[in-house]
């Protein structure tokens, strides 16, 4: 530690070079911070404690196939089931079919199963009392400048009403506040409408349910409960497939893209070039300091401490740039989430990303410092001072 000042001074001996190198390192770790957030948002989707308590039951045939509503009563009889609710995909869009919104037509008790969404008691009552009521996520309210009490037209990209029109009218009864910071991006953009209004208005649903959500009394019993639910409709024409919310979401994300592989290959390319670049800087730094290092050795610094100092210098360079880079990613991530209109809801840089980032900084620092440090250690004082 007492050499920190010396290491710092040698690092900034050539300001331009060090700063230019630092910017490159900052860029690399900024990218790392952003991409790792994308990777985590895919990997951790649905992996919350609340998600573990919920089971999703859909048609075994396909996710577009609906299930009979009568299943609810039978599912509630399964031992280990606490509450059962259901929802339908509404496929809502505002003004333009491209302005798609996560919109579900839900059963009255839907909110009971999602403690992640909080709605004030008054607004919840207003929603229950309004046939055409809507509960809208905070972010979505802001996105379209809506207020509670507004009457808004929505298009359904899937369901026409009885006259064949796809334009629906709703009254906003309340706002959904997200209580789970990590999943806020999703619940923030959510829109919930009454299943009964939906079912009455469109001739195409005929009392069917898109999927059921079940809350289990004991998480450890989830697998058994899932099997018991599927057994209810085995060999019928509407067989079900029940999974925990975690498994269902993970499966879904995997079908969209193998994000992990893409992120890993990009970061591989980035860090490979970064190693070359910072390695070159360290080589230059040591080469031009040859005589200074020789002087250090002459006045009594051991070879190993010279080795340690050069290594420390390269690690310091990487850590400095890396911390700034990931630090820059922190404020950028909410901006990106905002800019994408909820399409991309990125979690903030987590502890895991910081830990992985720091170990990368240390690892790359040691790796690129190794060769110059080795040659600094092996430096022969007489040769170095004589510039041979």
């Amino acid at each position, binding site marked *: 530690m007492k050499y920190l000042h010396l290491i710092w001074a040698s690092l900034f001996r050539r300001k331009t070079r060090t700063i230019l190198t630092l910017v490159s390192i900052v860029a690399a770790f900024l990218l790392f911070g952003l991409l790792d957030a994308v990777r985590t948002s895919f990997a951790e989707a649905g992996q919350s404690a609340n998600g573990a308590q919920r089971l999703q039951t859909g048609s075994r045939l396909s996710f*577009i196939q609906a299930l009979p509503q009568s299943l609810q009563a039978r599912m509630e009889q399964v031992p280990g089931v606490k509450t059962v609710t259901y929802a339908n995909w509404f496929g809502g869009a505002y003004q333009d079919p491209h302005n798609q919104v996560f919109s579900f037509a839900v059963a009255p008790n839907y909110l009971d199963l999602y403690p992640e969404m909080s709605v004030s008691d008054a607004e919840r009552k207003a929603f229950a009392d309004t046939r055409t009521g809507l509960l809208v996520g905070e972010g979505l309210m802001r996105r379209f400048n809506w207020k509670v009490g507004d009457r808004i037209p929505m298009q359904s990209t899937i369901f026409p009403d009885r006259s064949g029109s796809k334009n629906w009218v709703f009254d906003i009864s309340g706002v959904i506040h997200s209580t789970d910071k990590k999943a806020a991006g999703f619940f923030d953009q959510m829109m919930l409408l009454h299943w009964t209004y939906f079912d009455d208005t469109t001739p195409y649903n005929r009392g069917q349910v898109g999927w059921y959500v079940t809350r289990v009394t004991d998480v450890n019993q989830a697998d058994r409960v899932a099997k018991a639910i599927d057994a209810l409709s085995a060999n019928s024409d509407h067989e079900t497939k029940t999974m925990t919310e975690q498994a269902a979401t993970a499966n879904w994300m995997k079908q969209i893209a193998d994000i992990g592989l893409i992120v890993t290959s990009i970061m591989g390319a980035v860090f490979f070039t970064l190693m070359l*670049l910072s390695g070159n800087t360290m080589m230059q730094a040591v080469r031009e300091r040859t005589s200074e290092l020789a002087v250090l050795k002459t006045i009594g610094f051991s070879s190993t401490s010279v080795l340690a100092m050069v290594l420390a210098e390269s690690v310091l360079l990487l850590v400095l740039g890396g911390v700034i880079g990931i630090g820059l990613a922190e404020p950028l991530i909410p901006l990106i989430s905002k800019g994408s209109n909820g399409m991309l809801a990125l979690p903030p840089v987590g502890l895991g990303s910081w830990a992985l980032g720091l170990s990368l900084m240390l690892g790359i620092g040691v790796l690129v410092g190794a060769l110059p440090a080795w040659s600094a250690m092996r430096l022969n004082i007489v040769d170095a001072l004589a510039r041979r």
Partner: protein
Amino acid sequence: MKTFLLILLVAVVLGAWIALPWQAALVLAALFAAWMAATRAGHRAASVAGVGISTLGQRLGSSAVIVVGIAGVVGVLVAMLAMAEGYAETLRKTGSEDTALVLRGASAAEVTSGLDHDSVVQIAQTAGIARDAKGEPLASAELVVAANLPLKDATGDDEGSVQLRGIGAEVWAVRPQVKIVDGRRFTPGLRELIVGRGAAKQFAGLVPGHTVRLGSQTWTVAGVFASGDALESEIWADANVVAEMYERGSSRNSVTVRLADPKGFPAFKAALGANPQLKTEASTTLDYFSRQSEGTTKVIRAIGIVVGAIMAIGAMFGALNTMFAAVAARAREIATLRAIGFAGLPVVVAILLETMLLAAAGGVLGGALAWLVFNGYAASTMAAGSVGKLSFELHVTAGVLWQGLKWALAIGFIGGLFPAVRAATMPVTTALREL
């Protein structure tokens, strides 16, 4: 002030450069070569550049920083753009100008559309549809639904979604690009499937002669078809059998028709609109599939450009670093040149040329690597507007490679410009006194 002007110049040059088509770039290169060959300043620039380039070998390590750094940027950029390109191309190829897709009014996609039996019959009778030898209209009414099937590389009972299309006998005339490559067509009325080549690669058990379970029913795979487009990611079966399983009765999702006249779409659309009993929306299949690919293509491209841009910043500063060091090492030579009467311009040009040559090498290397590794690389995603996994191949096109090279040269330009200007403007006396 000078730095500010320089940055302004960079911004203007980059803006123009991005918009530049390759023909213009070629003209620019030719003009530059002519300037070098014909004018005195050009000759001088060439000789200074020659010296710089001949010493590249001694600075292998630091020159490699530029080449590899830029190769990394270009490689990643080209791979991402090739993904967008491959995706868009697969969907675009699915459509054509002379076939039209008719959906229920205001439907965004085939899956969410629905046409009752009467509408299907009326659509087929609309004027402008080509007819076969027997005088029947070439109109294929199809059901589009999804089915879950076990994935090939799955752990446990992981299932994926595949788009299932219920078809009639007319489909073969309407979609002549679809050919059976293995096995045979399904027998109408039976629970038999034919599977696309792409679907067969994604899902387990899609082999002719094998059986698969869709929901609670057992189906036999009769054959494999190829079409070279997005249809390959689907599985097909008899529309009536599919309708029974999905409780769709006699309704269908869409009607695809072959137009009698390749340019007859506006007339066909007008004829549909004139029928008061129909509430439909028609587009050429080319239009429909291009529209489906738009959003996703944009997203992939945007990700590629953002990632590329951040990497480019890193590579640019790496190049700046190397070139500042190179200029510093040659400070005395350059000062000597200027002392004996060389103007600043040839010096600037020479250093820019050297950096951009290294950058071009990096661009070519990165593009070549991306082409070797990723051209034809199989990828898949849940496609927008469909309900199944779409398999597609990354396609490294000439346009994508040119884009990569442009980026490389732009990075080289900025990386060389500032060191070059410093070399050309450093007071000669100071530079000569440097060690």
